[in-house]
């Protein structure tokens, strides 16, 4: 009996498709046993890193920040396997694959596209007398609605007009026509300090601190995230990905989704790419690992993910069966928004730069303790130096 170990993270609601794929695969391949290692997002990488550092680790694993792992040789290069085995890599969005590469070599295959939409609480809109969001909304319309939707009681906010997620800011920068780096995967220059970028950052900061219609990210974490806030009707609109569909399914109020708003100059942007699956170069039985990988990352797996209630937009969207399986509510909105996808920065030093410089600087803006200009301006030298290293 062959054993293949497989690690992934996920909130409880996200787990059923993983479990189904494993079960289906084992049923189809009785001589193979898939050893499943699940950990929540909060602990997944700590464990994975320790294992990989010790030359161990799962054979196949769910992964993000691919270039960092690839640079350390902790991911199996896939090009040769794909060529040998005829994996339909052309059914994936080639741009989305960029963040799964390092130096033009592919190291992982994405599971989905982390497409965001606006979820909105119809009752709240009705109550505030605000018209439901449309595809024509721009930032101003969004801000305007958020202000009207925010409810306060004795100085305390009992319902936020809008809640957004912490790691989504770069999308806002793009909607405003700005960039963070001159190139998302091969940067040479830090560009967030240019006016378009600063404007976008400041816009978010002001939603939080000036308009006071959006919760601070620390607060959002403490409150249980956008999902929790929306479920308990304490946020009227949230920016979130398709994973919420499952969470909100049994909400006791009416809600719907809408496309993201346009930037002030009409630019549309959404996230492109998402986490993917990789193979451990140290896997004992690489052939077996690949076989499971191909099932998981290819059509059979993609169909399961696409048809799961809690799924995100599937990555292998060029495959007819996969596309057909994607029958999520508001699937059309997700698919059209997926088309606006643009890459987030993704390169080996990005983790360091984020943790050391970007995040602390952005914290100051989110907390209203500094303007975007001052905060971002203050780290240009550090980030530039790090890029140059």
């Amino acid at each position, binding site marked *: 009996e062959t054993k293949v*170990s497989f*690690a992934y*993270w*996920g*909130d*409880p*609601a996200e787990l059923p498709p993983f479990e189904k794929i494993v079960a289906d695969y084992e049923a189809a391949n009785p001589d193979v046993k898939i*050893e*499943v*290692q*699940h*950990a*929540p*997002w*909060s*602990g997944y990488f*700590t*464990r994975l890193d*320790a*294992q990989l*550092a*010790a*030359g*161990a680790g*799962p054979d196949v694993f769910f992964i993000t920040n691919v270039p960092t792992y690839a640079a350390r040789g902790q991911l199996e290069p896939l090009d040769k396997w794909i060529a040998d085995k005829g994996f339909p890599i052309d059914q994936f969005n080639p741009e989305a694959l960029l963040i799964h590469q390092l130096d033009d070599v592919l190291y992982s295959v994405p599971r989905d596209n982390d497409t965001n939409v606006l979820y909105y609480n119809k009752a709240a809109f009705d109550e505030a007398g605000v018209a439901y969001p449309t595809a024509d909304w721009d930032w101003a319309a969004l801000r305007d609605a958020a202000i009207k939707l925010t409810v306060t*009681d004795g100085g*305390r906010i*009992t319902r936020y007009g809008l809640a957004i997620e912490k790691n989504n800011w770069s999308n806002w920068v793009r909607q405003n026509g700005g960039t963070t780096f001159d190139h998302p995967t091969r940067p040479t220059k830090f560009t967030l300090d240019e006016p378009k970028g600063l404007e976008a950052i400041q816009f978010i900061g002001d939603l939080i601190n000036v308009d006071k219609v959006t919760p601070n990210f620390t607060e959002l974490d403490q*409150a*249980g*995230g*956008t*999902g*929790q*806030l929306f*479920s*308990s*009707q*304490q946020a009227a609109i949230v920016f*979130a990905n398709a*994973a*919420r569909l499952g*969470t909100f399914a049994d909400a*006791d109020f009416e809600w719907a989704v809408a496309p993201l708003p346009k930037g002030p100059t009409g630019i549309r942007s959404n996230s492109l790419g998402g986490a993917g699956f990789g193979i451990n170069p140290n896997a004992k039985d690489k052939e077996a690992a690949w076989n499971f990988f191909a099932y998981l990352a290819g059509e059979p797996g993609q169909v399961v993910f696409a048809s799961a209630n809690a799924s995100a937009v599937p990555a292998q969207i060029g495959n007819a069966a996969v596309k057909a399986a994607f029958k999520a509510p508001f699937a059309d909105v997700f698919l059209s928004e997926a088309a606006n996808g643009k890459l987030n920065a993704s390169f080996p030093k990005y983790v360091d730069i984020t943790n050391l410089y970007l995040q602390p600087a952005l914290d100051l803006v989110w907390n209203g303790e500094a303007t975007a200009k001052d905060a971002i301006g203050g780290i240009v030298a550090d980030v530039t130096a790090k890029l140059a290293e």
Partner: protein
Amino acid sequence: MARPTRHSAWDWVIFIALLAGVIITCAPFAWMISTAIKPNAEVFRFPPTLWVEAPLWDNFLRVFTVIPFGRAFANSLMVTGAITILQLIVCSMAAYAFACLQFRGREVLFLIYLAALMVPSQVTLIPNFLVVRNLGWIDTYQGLILPFAFSSFGTFLLRQYFKTIPRELIEASRLDGCSHWRIYLFIVLPLGKPALAALAIFAFVSQWNNFLWPLITTTKPEMQTVQIALSTLQGQFNTDWPLLMAGSVLATMPVLAVFILGNKAFISGLTAGSFGGK
């Protein structure tokens, strides 16, 4: 207290202050319980409420079905129990040598043991992980248990206590024909009970709440400890607070039980051990 008359005023002030302190120390715990029995939607209701009109007690049962809480609980009991017992054995043996035996290098070795207290575990995590992996102990109970089977703190605590055992008792037992092993077993261990209880509480509390080590050295669900199982409830985007709090409350119970059981002995153990003035 042998202070006559003049009680009242001060003592009332102190008593009330202490009760206020109890409210502060227990409030988060009360909050945990109150959250555990709230409907999810009410968790963040403003203004915040501690009292729950219609408590949902079944969260305490749901924990067992949503995550493998029962198994994790059993694992934790097994691992923490084993660590506690091993620490008691290993530390008491070392403490016996430090407190009751003469040997060259005693002071130096003791200082080395003590200095180990000052090294943060984050630094030794990876080297330790390598050791355990090379021993083939990933996903094993021994991998969870043995790295914690010895504790400098425990050795320190027990040594201080053992030093207060009157020398005559040990001499009497030597005359009675005891080898050192028997002195250790029949005299020092029984007499060291309070300090052992103290160590048991300390070891149990800290190991029960250990998170990082079990996280990285176990991969199989059936090897999960309570803390790991609980952490799976804390999602990336969404957390089921009532369930997480119900689990946390349940997870505190064994530690509380151990504290209450050892409480009496614990207090006197610390007294006699560290501050006997000898």
